[in-house]
């Protein structure tokens, strides 16, 4: 018997009018010791399903469940909240995306871990005897042991720390330890790594797999990232609009997705190293509202292969034949589980085999075209640094003292040619956004010089010249909700830069604004809409329209797609690339998404703790990275097209993720990456490496570069 057996599980939200099904007739099972990943875009009902299985949703929303969810024979749907309180923690535990919010900020980690046990003493209570003191002592010992198991370097010290004293990755580890305090049989992890950097994500995923294998625990991991699922899952379940659309063993799903949605979702993830000369794949439209009345398949409006049947009768989850030899040939040896049943809810399943996917040798075929080396430099950064003062007060007083504060950008020098698509990658805190803001003159550099064309940015004085600079250099932000004024119509937002930077007024202004909407692919009807009526992707298009309103030469795109679903990400990047071709724009594209930047950028700069450590074109970077940090990033990057299975042994003990300790490295002398570097030698501790050319077009700041 399976550990968890879910059948016809439906979650209804009782709204003002008719109830809305957030999750509909979910059926799946999880075996003991199995790792199931539930994948889907935002709005697909993954989190709702998990919270409802825990019966936690009803505390925060007027939701009710029907159907059956048998956990070890006990029905979670029919159970009372008292019964559930007994099961939660002991049999089924959950970890959340935001560890900082899930941990109580007023209590030390140790107290929170011990508290988790006191509800369900279980075996611990029996072994420790009857006394309450004994139980607490036993719990403390167990907590320290678990903190060690989850990879916290100083478990005893950590017990007495408050959550805010730990870095994001450490908080997530502490939360995992807390979930494990009562030895649950089923662990549900809701996007546990989404808020983390790729390197820490890789460590947490490895940790989860190790714990799961060691304990023979069942795991359900919810993620929007096919790459994550590809690395750790035994089986993958794909959800769309509250329905399960496909489920099966991970290798089979990756090698030959049968549901069009699964296939589209996979194709939307950019292929590392395969420079996309054409457009990135996208899925048109967006996930339908759960209350939307759609007879038939809910994916039909976005499907490339929809027929009349698809729009009238909803397909049920049915077994689909698995093509012989698919998956097994290319994939690493299957997990300890027999190939499970392969189910898909589609009237016209995709053909089982896609031969073009085997084209591994086609990589870089196009990319070998030499990068535009001869072009004149347009944006030149020369030893640019930005220091933020330690406190807001000294910041506003304009303190220029060298000591104290944070050096957000340190001595960055690069020149970018006209028409180039320059990618800037790095972990959070690497200073890539600050550099973008410096280029766009939203902040002034502490030292160094920036010049755009023949204009030196820091010597820009006078309203007229600033206006002319703003016409040439524009910026697109990450936050799609925040970057548009909620009280202004789209038309007003788009025409704002025209009004402030040009003399276009009246009808010409409106005509230009409408033309801009058309350019970014939005219907004219959106001119008078409010931002709240638009989706994230549409709002980002508006932001792009704003940015190109005054025909700029250079656009700084600061994480323009990281708040968006993968199916929409491609749409935005395609718009940017089309504008690059049509208007001859130069881009500084800031992102933490390696797969994306490696497949669209001409050249890439890798930043670490404020410094540019490597600059090279995408092909060189993938094939032969020179800086060890670049290699660490590449190894941590989840890629469903070329999955690197995480097993308990794939941890890289030397290349630790960036956390509060490694970020505190003394940056005044030596290499800033030395604490995480596997190639560290004595010279790295004393001498700062300069950015030097290793081979034509490839610069790296390392004493002992790879190759």
């Amino acid at each position, binding site marked *: 018997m399976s550990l968890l057996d879910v059948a016809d599980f439906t979650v209804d939200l009782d709204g003002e009018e008719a109830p809305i099904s957030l999750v509909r007739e979910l059926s799946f099972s999880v075996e003991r010791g199995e790792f199931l990943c539930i994948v889907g875009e935002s709005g697909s009902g993954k989190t709702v399903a998990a919270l409802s299985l825990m019966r936690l949703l009803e505390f925060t929303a007027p939701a009710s469940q029907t159907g059956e969810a048998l956990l070890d024979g006990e029905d979670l749907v029919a159970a009372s909240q008292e019964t559930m309180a007994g099961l939660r923690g002991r049999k089924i535990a959950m970890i959340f995306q935001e560890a900082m919010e899930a941990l109580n900020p007023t209590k030390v980690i140790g107290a929170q871990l011990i508290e988790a046990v006191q509800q369900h003493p279980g075996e611990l209570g029996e072994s420790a005897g009857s006394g309450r003191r004994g139980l607490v002592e036993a719990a403390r010992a167990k907590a320290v042991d678990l903190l060690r198991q989850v990879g916290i370097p100083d478990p005893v010290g950590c017990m007495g720390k408050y959550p805010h004293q730990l870095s994001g990755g450490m908080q997530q580890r502490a939360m995992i330890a807390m979930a494990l305090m009562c030895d649950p049989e089923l662990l549900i992890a809701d996007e546990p790594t989404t808020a983390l950097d790729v390197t820490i994500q890789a460590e947490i995923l490895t940790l989860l797999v190790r714990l799961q294998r060691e304990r023979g625990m069942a795991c359900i991991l919810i993620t929007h990232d096919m790459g994550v699922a590809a690395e750790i899952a035994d089986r993958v379940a794909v959800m769309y609009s509250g329905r399960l659309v496909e489920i099966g063993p991970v290798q089979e799903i990756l090698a030959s997705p049968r549901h069009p949605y699964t296939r589209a979702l996979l194709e939307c993830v950019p292929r590392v190293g395969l420079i996309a000369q054409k457009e990135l794949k996208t899925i048109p439209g967006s996930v339908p509202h759960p209350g939307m009345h759609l007879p038939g398949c809910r994916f039909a409006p976005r499907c490339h292969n929809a027929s009349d049947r698809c729009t009238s009768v909803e397909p049920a989850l049915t077994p689909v034949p698995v093509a012989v030899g698919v998956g097994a040939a290319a994939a690493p040896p299957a997990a300890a589980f027999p190939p499970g049943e392969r189910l898909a809810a589609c009237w016209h399943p995709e053909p089982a085999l896609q031969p073009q996917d085997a084209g591994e040798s086609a990589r870089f075929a196009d990319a070998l075209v030499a990068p535009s080396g001869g072009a004149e430099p347009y944006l030149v950064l020369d030893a640019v640094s930005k220091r933020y003062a330690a406190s807001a007060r000294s910041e506003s007083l304009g303190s220029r003292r060298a000591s104290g504060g944070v050096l957000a950008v340190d001595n960055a020098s690069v020149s970018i040619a006209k028409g180039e698509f320059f990618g800037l990658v790095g972990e959070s805190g690497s200073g890539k956004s600050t550099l973008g803001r410096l280029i766009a003159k939203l902040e002034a550099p502490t030292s160094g010089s920036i010049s755009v064309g023949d204009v030196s940015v820091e010597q820009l004085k006078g309203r007229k010249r600033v206006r002319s600079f703003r016409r040439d250099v524009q910026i697109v932000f990450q936050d799609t909700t*925040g970057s548009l004024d909620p009280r202004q119509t789209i038309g007003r937002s788009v025409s704002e830069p025209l009004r*402030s930077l040009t003399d276009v007024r009246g009808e010409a202004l409106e005509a230009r604004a409408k033309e801009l909407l058309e350019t970014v692919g939005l219907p004219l009807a959106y001119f008078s809409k409010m931002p709240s009526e638009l989706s994230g992707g549409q709002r980002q298009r508006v932001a792009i329209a704003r940015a190109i309103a005054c025909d700029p030469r250079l656009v700084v795109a600061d994480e323009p797609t990281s708040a968006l679903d993968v199916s929409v990400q491609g749409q935005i990047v395609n718009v940017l690339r089309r504008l690059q071709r049509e208007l001859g724009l130069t881009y500084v594209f800031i992102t933490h998404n390696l797969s994306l930047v490696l497949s669209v950028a001409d050249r890439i700069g890798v930043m670490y703790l404020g410094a540019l450590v490597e600059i090279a074109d995408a092909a060189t970077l993938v094939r032969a990275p020179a800086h060890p940090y670049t290699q660490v990033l590449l190894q941590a990057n989840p890629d469903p097209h070329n999955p690197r299975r995480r097993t308990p042994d794939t941890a890289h003990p030397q290349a630790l993720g960036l956390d509060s300790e490694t970020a505190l490295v003394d940056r005044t002398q030596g290499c800033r990456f030395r604490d995480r570097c596997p190639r560290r030698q004595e010279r790295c501790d004393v001498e700062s490496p300069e950015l030097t050319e290793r081979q034509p077009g490839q610069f790296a700041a390392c004493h002992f570069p790879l190759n």
Partner: protein
Amino acid sequence: MSVEAVLIKNEEPGVVGDQRPPRRGRFSGWRRGLSGLWQRDAPAVIWAVVLLLMVLVSALGPFFLTSPDAIEPANRLMPPSADHPFGTDEYGRDLLSRVVSAGRVSLGLGILITVVAVVMGTLVGSVAGFYERSSGVLMRLMDALMAFPAIVLAIALVISLRSGIWSEIIALGVVFIPYVARVVRSRVLTLRERGYVTAARAAGVSGPRILLTHILPNAAPAILVQAVFVYASALLADAALSFLGLGVQPPTPTWGNMIGEARTFITLAPGFMIFPGLAIVISVMALNLVGDGARGLIDQRARAVLELERVRKKQGKEQRRRRSPAAPAVD
């Protein structure tokens, strides 16, 4: 995705077509809006109606009632009767028409005081919030104003300005400036960090323009709510000043100076004091409750919680009904 996001998520009309669920319900348009307000916060709606009635009666009443200054020496300090529903005062003037026309003066004064406080407070608060360097000086000035008890400061100002309607308006307006300024400054401080403000900067929009076109419109709901509370406080302060004889001078009636006149006759004619007193209590209470309701309306989080409570109440009732016959079977 948080659950709250599920509750208040605003799904968009996609390229595929409008995917919002069709709206169902009895009402449409403004009537639907009203019924929504009623369901969300019925007391606030009732008190808003009360407030509206008071304003209407004060504004239109004097056209239908006897003059508030008509003296009837024969009928002094009469208890309520058919001729004089509220009774009469020490000169035999009709108390009903005096309370109504006092309402006109008091409510009108309150509005003017509020306007002064809101305009000045918004100016000070937005400048202090937007231009960091000015914050220290301006806000310490506001702190200094707040350090005095409101009524003492008002008395001092009125006395130094010579008593009269305009000096009272200015005095009380100044007293309430900090209450508006602090709210506006805190809103401006959060709003100026929003993406669209940075975006406007990048688009070359000048500072004052950003303040006017992006920040103030988005701060407006909070300012309006605070204005309602200031209005309530202004009514009370005005009553106190008039009671002390520092506000509007007799024979023009205000609720405050009526109570002041009545205090000598409190045992002889309690109605003389009770009716203007009630008018003050009801209007101040109505303003405070309407302000609370309005605050709930603009606060998205509070809205989601209220909604949840309402639905859960409904759900609880249904569940009790459903479960009652089979209660022991559960668990």
